[in-house]
Protein backbone atom coordinates (compact mmCIF):
# COMPACT_ATOMS: atom_id res chain seq x y z
CA UNK A 1 0.00 0.00 0.00
CA UNK A 2 2.76 2.37 1.01
CA UNK A 3 4.79 1.51 -2.07
CA UNK A 4 1.79 2.10 -4.32
CA UNK A 5 1.39 5.54 -2.80
CA UNK A 6 5.04 6.38 -3.48
CA UNK A 7 4.82 5.31 -7.14
CA UNK A 8 1.70 7.43 -7.62
CA UNK A 9 3.52 10.44 -6.16
CA UNK A 10 6.57 9.77 -8.35
CA UNK A 11 4.41 9.61 -11.46
CA UNK A 12 2.90 13.00 -10.62
CA UNK A 13 6.35 14.48 -10.08
CA UNK A 14 7.44 13.05 -13.42
CA UNK A 15 4.78 15.26 -15.01
CA UNK A 16 5.14 18.21 -12.64
CA UNK A 17 8.87 18.82 -13.06
CA UNK A 18 8.83 19.07 -16.89
CA UNK A 19 5.75 21.31 -16.66
CA UNK A 20 7.58 23.61 -14.25
CA UNK A 21 10.69 23.78 -16.46
CA UNK A 22 8.67 24.31 -19.64
CA UNK A 23 6.62 27.11 -18.08
CA UNK A 24 9.35 28.97 -16.27
CA UNK A 25 12.36 28.68 -18.56
CA UNK A 26 11.58 31.68 -20.86
CA UNK A 27 10.56 33.76 -17.85
CA UNK A 28 13.64 32.75 -15.85
CA UNK A 29 15.73 33.60 -18.91
CA UNK A 30 14.22 37.08 -18.93
CA UNK A 31 15.09 37.50 -15.26
CA UNK A 32 18.58 36.01 -15.77
CA UNK A 33 19.42 38.58 -18.46
CA UNK A 34 18.15 41.45 -16.38
CA UNK A 35 20.62 40.68 -13.56
CA UNK A 36 23.56 39.73 -15.81
CA UNK A 37 26.32 41.94 -17.18
CA UNK A 38 26.29 41.82 -20.97
CA UNK A 39 29.28 39.45 -21.39
CA UNK A 40 27.90 36.98 -18.88
CA UNK A 41 24.43 37.01 -20.48
CA UNK A 42 25.91 36.18 -23.88
CA UNK A 43 28.03 33.35 -22.48
CA UNK A 44 24.99 31.10 -22.04
CA UNK A 45 25.46 30.77 -18.28
CA UNK A 46 22.57 29.54 -16.13
CA UNK A 47 23.50 31.95 -13.32
CA UNK A 48 25.77 35.00 -13.64
CA UNK A 49 29.12 35.01 -11.77
CA UNK A 50 28.43 38.54 -10.59
CA UNK A 51 24.70 39.31 -10.45
CA UNK A 52 24.07 43.03 -10.71
CA UNK A 53 21.26 45.56 -10.76
CA UNK A 54 23.21 47.72 -13.19
CA UNK A 55 20.78 47.06 -16.05
CA UNK A 56 17.89 48.39 -14.00
CA UNK A 57 19.90 51.48 -13.18
CA UNK A 58 20.56 52.12 -16.88
CA UNK A 59 16.88 51.64 -17.69
CA UNK A 60 15.57 53.83 -14.85
CA UNK A 61 18.03 56.61 -15.73
CA UNK A 62 17.20 56.25 -19.45
CA UNK A 63 20.94 55.95 -20.19
CA UNK A 64 20.69 54.34 -23.60
CA UNK A 65 19.61 55.49 -27.04
CA UNK A 66 16.66 53.04 -27.03
CA UNK A 67 15.62 54.11 -23.55
CA UNK A 68 15.31 57.87 -24.05
CA UNK A 69 11.61 57.81 -23.34
CA UNK A 70 11.31 54.81 -21.01
CA UNK A 71 9.26 56.53 -18.31
CA UNK A 72 7.01 58.27 -20.82
CA UNK A 73 6.37 54.98 -22.62
CA UNK A 74 5.60 53.23 -19.34
CA UNK A 75 3.15 56.03 -18.60
CA UNK A 76 1.61 55.66 -22.09
CA UNK A 77 1.05 51.95 -21.49
CA UNK A 78 -0.58 52.68 -18.16
CA UNK A 79 -2.75 55.50 -19.46
CA UNK A 80 -3.97 53.47 -22.44
CA UNK A 81 -4.62 50.34 -20.36
CA UNK A 82 -6.58 52.22 -17.69
CA UNK A 83 -8.60 54.16 -20.29
CA UNK A 84 -9.47 50.96 -22.14
CA UNK A 85 -10.42 49.22 -18.90
CA UNK A 86 -12.68 52.06 -17.73
CA UNK A 87 -14.30 52.83 -21.09
CA UNK A 88 -14.89 49.17 -21.97
CA UNK A 89 -16.55 48.73 -18.61
CA UNK A 90 -18.80 51.71 -19.31
CA UNK A 91 -19.75 50.63 -22.83
CA UNK A 92 -20.22 46.95 -21.97
CA UNK A 93 -22.13 47.45 -18.73
CA UNK A 94 -24.55 49.85 -20.41
CA UNK A 95 -25.14 47.45 -23.27
CA UNK A 96 -25.52 44.37 -21.04
CA UNK A 97 -27.95 46.22 -18.74
CA UNK A 98 -30.01 47.43 -21.69
CA UNK A 99 -30.11 43.99 -23.33
CA UNK A 100 -30.63 41.85 -20.26
CA UNK A 101 -32.63 44.01 -17.83
CA UNK A 102 -34.35 46.69 -19.92
CA UNK A 103 -35.00 44.24 -22.78
CA UNK A 104 -34.32 46.94 -25.32
CA UNK A 105 -35.71 46.27 -28.80
CA UNK A 106 -33.05 44.85 -31.09
CA UNK A 107 -30.95 43.84 -28.08
CA UNK A 108 -30.66 40.28 -29.30
CA UNK A 109 -29.42 41.41 -32.69
CA UNK A 110 -26.78 43.61 -31.05
CA UNK A 111 -25.69 40.68 -28.87
CA UNK A 112 -25.30 38.45 -31.93
CA UNK A 113 -23.35 41.09 -33.83
CA UNK A 114 -21.06 41.51 -30.83
CA UNK A 115 -20.49 37.76 -30.67
CA UNK A 116 -19.72 37.70 -34.37
CA UNK A 117 -17.13 40.43 -33.83
CA UNK A 118 -15.60 38.33 -31.06
CA UNK A 119 -14.90 35.61 -33.63
CA UNK A 120 -13.00 37.79 -36.09
CA UNK A 121 -9.31 36.83 -35.83
CA UNK A 122 -7.50 39.87 -34.39
CA UNK A 123 -4.85 40.18 -37.11
CA UNK A 124 -7.54 40.10 -39.82
CA UNK A 125 -9.49 43.02 -38.38
CA UNK A 126 -6.23 44.92 -37.92
CA UNK A 127 -5.78 45.50 -41.66
CA UNK A 128 -9.05 47.34 -42.36
CA UNK A 129 -8.90 48.93 -38.90
CA UNK A 130 -5.56 50.51 -39.75
CA UNK A 131 -6.89 51.95 -43.01
CA UNK A 132 -10.04 53.18 -41.28
CA UNK A 133 -8.10 54.95 -38.55
CA UNK A 134 -6.17 56.62 -41.35
CA UNK A 135 -9.44 57.77 -42.92
CA UNK A 136 -10.59 59.13 -39.56
CA UNK A 137 -7.27 60.98 -39.20
CA UNK A 138 -6.47 59.15 -35.97
CA UNK A 139 -3.19 57.43 -36.90
CA UNK A 140 -0.43 58.21 -34.42
CA UNK A 141 -3.02 59.37 -31.95
CA UNK A 142 -3.37 57.35 -28.76
CA UNK A 143 -7.15 57.53 -29.12
CA UNK A 144 -6.84 55.25 -32.14
CA UNK A 145 -5.37 52.50 -29.96
CA UNK A 146 -7.81 53.13 -27.12
CA UNK A 147 -10.81 52.95 -29.46
CA UNK A 148 -9.46 49.88 -31.25
CA UNK A 149 -8.93 48.06 -27.97
CA UNK A 150 -12.43 48.99 -26.76
CA UNK A 151 -13.75 47.51 -30.00
CA UNK A 152 -11.87 44.28 -29.38
CA UNK A 153 -12.58 44.00 -25.64
CA UNK A 154 -16.28 44.94 -25.68
CA UNK A 155 -17.91 41.90 -27.37
CA UNK A 156 -16.65 39.37 -24.86
CA UNK A 157 -17.30 41.79 -22.00
CA UNK A 158 -20.92 42.32 -23.05
CA UNK A 159 -21.39 38.58 -23.42
CA UNK A 160 -20.04 37.75 -19.97
CA UNK A 161 -21.97 40.58 -18.31
CA UNK A 162 -25.18 39.59 -20.07
CA UNK A 163 -24.80 35.99 -18.89
CA UNK A 164 -24.29 37.22 -15.33
CA UNK A 165 -27.18 39.73 -15.57
CA UNK A 166 -29.59 37.08 -16.78
CA UNK A 167 -29.05 35.22 -13.54
CA UNK A 168 -30.26 38.08 -11.32
CA UNK A 169 -33.90 37.56 -10.31
CA UNK A 170 -36.29 39.70 -12.31
CA UNK A 171 -38.36 40.35 -9.16
CA UNK A 172 -35.67 42.80 -8.07
CA UNK A 173 -36.38 45.02 -11.06
CA UNK A 174 -40.11 44.80 -10.46
CA UNK A 175 -39.79 45.65 -6.78
CA UNK A 176 -37.62 48.65 -7.66
CA UNK A 177 -40.09 49.77 -10.27
CA UNK A 178 -43.08 49.48 -7.94
CA UNK A 179 -41.15 51.67 -5.50
CA UNK A 180 -40.96 54.21 -8.31
CA UNK A 181 -37.28 53.79 -9.20
CA UNK A 182 -36.12 55.17 -12.52
CA UNK A 183 -34.01 52.98 -14.85
CA UNK A 184 -30.92 54.89 -13.75
CA UNK A 185 -31.67 54.34 -10.08
CA UNK A 186 -32.24 50.64 -10.76
CA UNK A 187 -28.88 50.57 -12.55
CA UNK A 188 -26.99 52.42 -9.84
CA UNK A 189 -28.59 51.08 -6.68
CA UNK A 190 -29.48 47.51 -7.62
CA UNK A 191 -27.69 46.37 -10.73
CA UNK A 192 -24.12 47.64 -10.26
CA UNK A 193 -23.75 46.48 -6.61
CA UNK A 194 -25.02 43.00 -7.46
CA UNK A 195 -22.81 42.72 -10.54
CA UNK A 196 -19.64 43.90 -8.79
CA UNK A 197 -17.63 40.62 -9.08
CA UNK A 198 -18.29 40.36 -12.84
CA UNK A 199 -17.53 44.05 -13.29
CA UNK A 200 -14.16 43.63 -11.59
CA UNK A 201 -13.39 40.63 -13.80
CA UNK A 202 -14.29 42.48 -17.00
CA UNK A 203 -12.47 45.68 -16.05
CA UNK A 204 -9.33 43.67 -15.33
CA UNK A 205 -9.72 41.67 -18.53
CA UNK A 206 -9.94 44.79 -20.71
CA UNK A 207 -7.08 46.49 -18.86
CA UNK A 208 -4.75 43.50 -19.27
CA UNK A 209 -5.76 43.04 -22.92
CA UNK A 210 -4.78 46.65 -23.66
CA UNK A 211 -1.56 46.56 -21.63
CA UNK A 212 -0.42 43.35 -23.32
CA UNK A 213 -1.41 44.30 -26.88
CA UNK A 214 1.36 44.45 -29.44
CA UNK A 215 -0.03 44.26 -33.00
CA UNK A 216 -2.54 47.11 -32.85
CA UNK A 217 -0.21 49.30 -30.83
CA UNK A 218 2.60 48.77 -33.30
CA UNK A 219 0.37 49.52 -36.30
CA UNK A 220 -1.48 52.52 -34.94
CA UNK A 221 1.31 54.36 -33.09
CA UNK A 222 4.78 55.15 -34.35
CA UNK A 223 6.01 58.36 -32.74
CA UNK A 224 8.40 57.31 -29.98
CA UNK A 225 6.73 59.69 -27.55
CA UNK A 226 3.31 58.11 -28.21
CA UNK A 227 4.15 54.41 -28.28
CA UNK A 228 3.60 51.93 -25.48
CA UNK A 229 6.40 50.04 -23.78
CA UNK A 230 5.54 46.92 -25.81
CA UNK A 231 6.11 48.70 -29.11
CA UNK A 232 9.32 50.22 -27.74
CA UNK A 233 10.54 46.67 -27.02
CA UNK A 234 9.88 45.67 -30.61
CA UNK A 235 11.86 48.68 -31.80
CA UNK A 236 14.93 47.37 -29.97
CA UNK A 237 15.20 44.74 -32.69
CA UNK A 238 15.75 47.30 -35.42
CA UNK A 239 19.48 47.35 -34.74
CA UNK A 240 21.90 44.51 -35.44
CA UNK A 241 23.65 44.94 -32.10
CA UNK A 242 20.54 45.14 -29.96
CA UNK A 243 21.34 45.61 -26.27
CA UNK A 244 19.58 42.40 -25.32
CA UNK A 245 20.32 42.67 -21.60
CA UNK A 246 18.52 46.02 -21.52
CA UNK A 247 15.72 44.75 -23.73
CA UNK A 248 15.13 41.86 -21.32
CA UNK A 249 15.26 44.19 -18.31
CA UNK A 250 12.59 46.44 -19.83
CA UNK A 251 10.66 43.30 -20.79
CA UNK A 252 10.70 42.06 -17.23
CA UNK A 253 9.50 45.42 -15.94
CA UNK A 254 6.77 45.41 -18.59
CA UNK A 255 5.66 41.87 -17.68
CA UNK A 256 5.46 42.39 -13.92
CA UNK A 257 2.32 44.59 -13.60
CA UNK A 258 0.00 42.25 -15.55
CA UNK A 259 1.27 39.26 -13.55
CA UNK A 260 0.67 41.13 -10.28
CA UNK A 261 -2.78 42.28 -11.35
CA UNK A 262 -3.66 38.77 -12.44
CA UNK A 263 -2.72 37.33 -9.05
CA UNK A 264 -4.48 40.14 -7.18
CA UNK A 265 -7.76 39.59 -9.04
CA UNK A 266 -7.37 35.88 -9.70
CA UNK A 267 -10.47 35.09 -7.66
CA UNK A 268 -12.64 37.20 -9.97
CA UNK A 269 -10.76 36.45 -13.18
CA UNK A 270 -10.92 32.68 -13.14
CA UNK A 271 -14.53 32.62 -12.01
CA UNK A 272 -15.65 35.36 -14.38
CA UNK A 273 -13.72 34.40 -17.45
CA UNK A 274 -14.23 30.67 -17.46
CA UNK A 275 -17.86 31.23 -16.53
CA UNK A 276 -20.03 29.22 -18.78
CA UNK A 277 -17.18 27.01 -19.86
CA UNK A 278 -19.01 24.13 -18.36
CA UNK A 279 -22.25 23.07 -19.83
CA UNK A 280 -23.37 19.61 -20.71
Amino acid sequence: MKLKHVTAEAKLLLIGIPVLLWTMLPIYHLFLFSISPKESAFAGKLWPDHPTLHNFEVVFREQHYYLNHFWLQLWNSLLIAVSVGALTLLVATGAAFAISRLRVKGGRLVMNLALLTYFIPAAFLAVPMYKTMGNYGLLNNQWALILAMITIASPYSIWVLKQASDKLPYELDEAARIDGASPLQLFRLVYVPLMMPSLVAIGTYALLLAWNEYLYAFLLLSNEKQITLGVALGNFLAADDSPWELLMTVGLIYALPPAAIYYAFKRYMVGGLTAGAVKS
Partner: protein
Amino acid sequence: MSTIALPRVEPALPAGPAKKRLSTWQTWGLILIAPYVLVFLVFVLYPIGYGLWLARHPDSYVRLVEDPIFTRSVINTLVFLIVGINIKMVIALFLSGFFVQARWWIKWLSLLFILPWAVPSIPTILSIRFMLNPEWGIINSVIFRVTGLDGPNWLNDPTIALAMAITVHIWKSLPFWTLILIAGRLAIPAEHYEAASVDGASTWQKFRFITWPSMRTLYLTSTILSMIWTLGDFNSVYLLTGGGPADLTHVLATLGIRYLRLDQVDLAMAAIVCALPLVLPLVYFMMKRLSK
Protein backbone atom coordinates in the same frame (compact mmCIF):
# COMPACT_ATOMS: atom_id res chain seq x y z
CA MET B 1 -4.32 37.64 -23.95
CA SER B 2 -7.31 35.68 -25.05
CA THR B 3 -10.37 34.55 -23.26
CA ILE B 4 -13.08 32.13 -23.91
CA ALA B 5 -16.76 31.98 -23.53
CA LEU B 6 -18.63 28.82 -23.89
CA PRO B 7 -22.33 28.27 -23.55
CA ARG B 8 -24.29 28.07 -20.37
CA VAL B 9 -27.92 27.28 -19.76
CA GLU B 10 -30.16 30.18 -20.62
CA PRO B 11 -32.31 31.07 -17.59
CA ALA B 12 -36.04 30.92 -18.07
CA LEU B 13 -37.29 34.29 -19.22
CA PRO B 14 -39.50 35.88 -16.59
CA ALA B 15 -43.01 36.08 -17.92
CA GLY B 16 -45.02 39.19 -17.73
CA PRO B 17 -44.30 42.82 -18.00
CA ALA B 18 -42.49 42.88 -21.36
CA LYS B 19 -45.47 44.38 -23.19
CA LYS B 20 -46.57 46.77 -20.49
CA ARG B 21 -43.13 48.32 -20.09
CA LEU B 22 -43.10 52.07 -19.90
CA SER B 23 -41.46 53.72 -22.84
CA THR B 24 -39.00 55.58 -20.61
CA TRP B 25 -37.45 52.18 -19.93
CA GLN B 26 -37.09 51.56 -23.66
CA THR B 27 -35.65 55.04 -24.10
CA TRP B 28 -33.05 54.41 -21.42
CA GLY B 29 -32.33 51.03 -22.99
CA LEU B 30 -31.58 52.71 -26.30
CA ILE B 31 -29.39 55.34 -24.65
CA LEU B 32 -27.37 52.72 -22.77
CA ILE B 33 -26.90 50.41 -25.74
CA ALA B 34 -26.05 53.30 -28.10
CA PRO B 35 -22.32 53.57 -27.22
CA TYR B 36 -21.67 49.96 -28.20
CA VAL B 37 -23.77 50.23 -31.35
CA LEU B 38 -21.72 53.28 -32.29
CA VAL B 39 -18.45 51.44 -31.63
CA PHE B 40 -19.68 48.55 -33.77
CA LEU B 41 -20.74 50.74 -36.69
CA VAL B 42 -17.66 52.96 -36.70
CA PHE B 43 -14.91 50.45 -35.87
CA VAL B 44 -16.26 47.09 -37.07
CA LEU B 45 -18.89 47.45 -39.78
CA TYR B 46 -17.37 50.36 -41.66
CA PRO B 47 -13.79 48.95 -41.64
CA ILE B 48 -14.99 45.55 -42.86
CA GLY B 49 -17.12 47.09 -45.60
CA TYR B 50 -14.30 49.38 -46.62
CA GLY B 51 -11.79 46.53 -46.56
CA LEU B 52 -13.96 44.33 -48.76
CA TRP B 53 -14.40 47.24 -51.14
CA LEU B 54 -10.62 47.62 -51.36
CA ALA B 55 -10.35 43.93 -52.25
CA ARG B 56 -12.99 44.09 -55.01
CA HIS B 57 -10.68 43.81 -58.05
CA PRO B 58 -10.13 40.27 -59.41
CA ASP B 59 -6.69 41.51 -60.40
CA SER B 60 -5.64 41.60 -56.73
CA TYR B 61 -6.38 37.89 -56.41
CA VAL B 62 -4.39 37.05 -59.51
CA ARG B 63 -1.38 38.91 -58.12
CA LEU B 64 -1.88 37.27 -54.75
CA VAL B 65 -1.93 33.73 -56.12
CA GLU B 66 1.13 34.48 -58.24
CA ASP B 67 3.05 35.48 -55.11
CA PRO B 68 4.92 32.34 -53.98
CA ILE B 69 4.90 33.64 -50.39
CA PHE B 70 1.11 33.42 -50.38
CA THR B 71 1.01 29.71 -51.26
CA ARG B 72 3.65 29.01 -48.65
CA SER B 73 1.71 31.02 -46.05
CA VAL B 74 -1.49 29.07 -46.71
CA ILE B 75 0.37 25.78 -46.18
CA ASN B 76 2.05 27.12 -43.03
CA THR B 77 -1.28 28.33 -41.68
CA LEU B 78 -2.87 24.92 -42.24
CA VAL B 79 0.05 23.16 -40.54
CA PHE B 80 -0.16 25.64 -37.68
CA LEU B 81 -3.87 25.00 -37.22
CA ILE B 82 -4.13 21.29 -37.85
CA VAL B 83 -0.92 20.09 -36.22
CA GLY B 84 -0.33 22.86 -33.68
CA ILE B 85 -3.82 23.20 -32.25
CA ASN B 86 -4.43 19.46 -31.97
CA ILE B 87 -1.14 18.87 -30.17
CA LYS B 88 -1.94 21.76 -27.85
CA MET B 89 -5.44 20.56 -27.05
CA VAL B 90 -4.34 16.98 -26.37
CA ILE B 91 -1.66 18.24 -23.97
CA ALA B 92 -4.21 20.56 -22.35
CA LEU B 93 -6.60 17.65 -21.89
CA PHE B 94 -3.85 15.56 -20.33
CA LEU B 95 -2.61 18.36 -18.05
CA SER B 96 -6.12 19.21 -16.91
CA GLY B 97 -6.19 15.69 -15.45
CA PHE B 98 -2.88 16.37 -13.72
CA PHE B 99 -3.93 19.71 -12.24
CA VAL B 100 -7.16 18.40 -10.68
CA GLN B 101 -5.11 16.09 -8.42
CA ALA B 102 -5.36 17.34 -4.85
CA ARG B 103 -1.75 18.03 -3.78
CA TRP B 104 -0.39 21.16 -2.17
CA TRP B 105 2.51 21.40 -4.62
CA ILE B 106 0.25 21.01 -7.65
CA LYS B 107 -1.75 24.00 -6.39
CA TRP B 108 1.44 26.07 -6.30
CA LEU B 109 2.51 24.80 -9.69
CA SER B 110 -0.84 25.79 -11.16
CA LEU B 111 -0.23 29.38 -10.00
CA LEU B 112 3.05 29.51 -11.92
CA PHE B 113 1.66 27.56 -14.87
CA ILE B 114 -0.72 30.42 -15.75
CA LEU B 115 2.10 32.98 -16.17
CA PRO B 116 2.77 32.56 -19.92
CA TRP B 117 -0.84 33.46 -20.58
CA ALA B 118 -1.03 36.35 -18.09
CA VAL B 119 2.10 38.24 -19.17
CA PRO B 120 2.48 40.10 -22.48
CA SER B 121 3.78 38.16 -25.50
CA ILE B 122 6.57 40.43 -26.57
CA PRO B 123 9.07 40.07 -23.70
CA THR B 124 8.64 36.32 -23.37
CA ILE B 125 8.75 35.60 -27.10
CA LEU B 126 11.86 37.77 -27.50
CA SER B 127 13.35 35.88 -24.57
CA ILE B 128 12.69 32.58 -26.36
CA ARG B 129 14.11 34.07 -29.54
CA PHE B 130 17.40 34.74 -27.80
CA MET B 131 17.38 31.33 -26.14
CA LEU B 132 17.31 29.85 -29.66
CA ASN B 133 20.23 31.96 -30.88
CA PRO B 134 22.70 29.42 -32.34
CA GLU B 135 25.84 31.08 -30.97
CA TRP B 136 24.89 32.75 -27.70
CA GLY B 137 21.56 31.15 -26.83
CA ILE B 138 21.24 29.13 -23.67
CA ILE B 139 19.78 26.10 -25.44
CA ASN B 140 22.68 25.46 -27.79
CA SER B 141 25.07 26.28 -24.98
CA VAL B 142 23.52 23.53 -22.86
CA ILE B 143 23.51 21.14 -25.82
CA PHE B 144 27.20 21.86 -26.35
CA ARG B 145 28.07 21.35 -22.69
CA VAL B 146 26.17 18.05 -22.50
CA THR B 147 26.99 16.47 -25.86
CA GLY B 148 29.97 18.47 -27.11
CA LEU B 149 28.11 19.02 -30.40
CA ASP B 150 26.78 22.21 -31.94
CA GLY B 151 23.01 22.50 -31.70
CA PRO B 152 20.84 23.24 -34.73
CA ASN B 153 20.53 26.72 -36.20
CA TRP B 154 16.96 26.91 -34.94
CA LEU B 155 15.53 29.92 -36.69
CA ASN B 156 17.49 29.66 -39.93
CA ASP B 157 15.82 26.50 -41.14
CA PRO B 158 12.23 27.20 -42.28
CA THR B 159 10.87 23.87 -41.03
CA ILE B 160 12.45 24.12 -37.59
CA ALA B 161 11.58 27.83 -37.40
CA LEU B 162 7.90 27.12 -38.09
CA ALA B 163 7.95 24.30 -35.54
CA MET B 164 9.43 26.74 -33.02
CA ALA B 165 6.72 29.32 -33.80
CA ILE B 166 4.12 26.62 -33.13
CA THR B 167 5.95 25.74 -29.91
CA VAL B 168 5.84 29.38 -28.84
CA HIS B 169 2.14 29.50 -29.59
CA ILE B 170 1.59 26.38 -27.49
CA TRP B 171 3.72 27.78 -24.65
CA LYS B 172 1.65 30.95 -24.62
CA SER B 173 -1.89 29.58 -24.89
CA LEU B 174 -1.64 26.14 -23.28
CA PRO B 175 -2.39 27.49 -19.75
CA PHE B 176 -5.62 29.08 -20.86
CA TRP B 177 -7.04 25.97 -22.51
CA THR B 178 -5.88 23.80 -19.64
CA LEU B 179 -7.80 26.11 -17.30
CA ILE B 180 -10.95 25.70 -19.40
CA LEU B 181 -10.64 21.92 -19.47
CA ILE B 182 -9.96 21.87 -15.70
CA ALA B 183 -13.28 23.68 -15.25
CA GLY B 184 -14.85 20.97 -17.41
CA ARG B 185 -13.36 18.16 -15.35
CA LEU B 186 -14.35 19.73 -12.04
CA ALA B 187 -17.97 19.79 -13.20
CA ILE B 188 -18.08 15.99 -13.38
CA PRO B 189 -19.64 14.63 -10.15
CA ALA B 190 -17.06 12.80 -8.02
CA GLU B 191 -19.57 10.01 -7.29
CA HIS B 192 -19.18 8.75 -10.86
CA TYR B 193 -15.49 8.08 -10.26
CA GLU B 194 -16.13 6.57 -6.82
CA ALA B 195 -18.70 4.20 -8.25
CA ALA B 196 -16.31 3.23 -11.04
CA SER B 197 -13.52 2.58 -8.50
CA VAL B 198 -15.81 0.29 -6.54
CA ASP B 199 -16.47 -1.61 -9.75
CA GLY B 200 -12.71 -1.93 -10.26
CA ALA B 201 -12.39 0.34 -13.32
CA SER B 202 -8.88 1.20 -14.51
CA THR B 203 -7.66 4.78 -14.98
CA TRP B 204 -8.06 4.43 -18.72
CA GLN B 205 -11.59 3.05 -18.37
CA LYS B 206 -12.53 5.94 -16.10
CA PHE B 207 -11.28 8.39 -18.71
CA ARG B 208 -12.90 6.52 -21.60
CA PHE B 209 -16.32 6.02 -20.05
CA ILE B 210 -16.73 8.94 -17.61
CA THR B 211 -14.40 11.85 -18.39
CA TRP B 212 -14.41 11.82 -22.17
CA PRO B 213 -18.19 11.52 -22.74
CA SER B 214 -18.84 14.56 -20.52
CA MET B 215 -15.92 16.61 -21.90
CA ARG B 216 -16.30 15.79 -25.60
CA THR B 217 -18.44 18.80 -26.51
CA LEU B 218 -16.32 21.21 -24.50
CA TYR B 219 -13.18 19.80 -26.08
CA LEU B 220 -14.54 20.18 -29.60
CA THR B 221 -15.79 23.73 -28.98
CA SER B 222 -12.46 24.70 -27.45
CA THR B 223 -10.56 23.28 -30.42
CA ILE B 224 -12.68 25.21 -32.91
CA LEU B 225 -12.46 28.45 -30.96
CA SER B 226 -8.72 28.03 -30.62
CA MET B 227 -8.44 27.54 -34.39
CA ILE B 228 -10.36 30.76 -35.08
CA TRP B 229 -8.16 32.75 -32.72
CA THR B 230 -4.95 31.16 -33.91
CA LEU B 231 -5.69 32.40 -37.42
CA GLY B 232 -5.24 35.85 -35.90
CA ASP B 233 -2.07 34.96 -33.99
CA PHE B 234 0.42 37.46 -35.33
CA ASN B 235 2.84 37.54 -32.40
CA SER B 236 4.06 33.93 -32.29
CA VAL B 237 5.41 34.09 -35.83
CA TYR B 238 6.28 37.75 -36.22
CA LEU B 239 8.17 38.18 -32.96
CA LEU B 240 10.04 34.89 -33.26
CA THR B 241 10.99 34.64 -36.94
CA GLY B 242 9.65 37.84 -38.49
CA GLY B 243 8.36 35.56 -41.27
CA GLY B 244 11.89 34.56 -42.16
CA PRO B 245 14.12 32.99 -43.24
CA ALA B 246 13.39 34.23 -46.77
CA ASP B 247 9.69 34.80 -45.95
CA LEU B 248 9.19 31.05 -45.65
CA THR B 249 7.51 30.98 -42.23
CA HIS B 250 4.73 33.51 -42.81
CA VAL B 251 1.18 32.61 -41.87
CA LEU B 252 -1.88 34.47 -43.20
CA ALA B 253 -1.93 36.77 -40.15
CA THR B 254 1.65 37.99 -40.67
CA LEU B 255 1.33 38.00 -44.47
CA GLY B 256 -1.66 40.36 -44.30
CA ILE B 257 0.28 42.74 -42.06
CA ARG B 258 3.34 42.41 -44.32
CA TYR B 259 1.32 43.55 -47.35
CA LEU B 260 -0.18 46.33 -45.25
CA ARG B 261 3.28 47.57 -44.29
CA LEU B 262 4.31 47.43 -47.96
CA ASP B 263 1.28 49.61 -48.71
CA GLN B 264 -0.44 46.86 -50.72
CA VAL B 265 -3.72 46.97 -48.84
CA ASP B 266 -5.67 45.33 -51.64
CA LEU B 267 -3.39 42.28 -51.40
CA ALA B 268 -3.69 42.27 -47.62
CA MET B 269 -7.47 42.26 -47.84
CA ALA B 270 -7.46 39.71 -50.66
CA ALA B 271 -5.39 37.36 -48.49
CA ILE B 272 -7.93 37.75 -45.69
CA VAL B 273 -10.84 37.18 -48.09
CA CYS B 274 -9.12 33.96 -49.20
CA ALA B 275 -9.15 32.81 -45.57
CA LEU B 276 -12.91 33.30 -45.27
CA PRO B 277 -13.87 29.84 -46.57
CA LEU B 278 -11.84 28.50 -43.64
CA VAL B 279 -13.11 30.97 -41.04
CA LEU B 280 -16.82 31.19 -41.83
CA PRO B 281 -17.77 27.54 -41.18
CA LEU B 282 -15.91 27.67 -37.86
CA VAL B 283 -17.62 30.93 -36.90
CA TYR B 284 -21.01 29.54 -37.97
CA PHE B 285 -20.46 26.56 -35.70
CA MET B 286 -19.54 28.80 -32.75
CA MET B 287 -22.47 31.17 -33.30
CA LYS B 288 -24.88 28.23 -33.29
CA ARG B 289 -23.39 27.03 -30.01
CA LEU B 290 -23.31 30.39 -28.27
CA SER B 291 -26.24 32.52 -29.36
CA LYS B 292 -29.35 31.03 -27.94
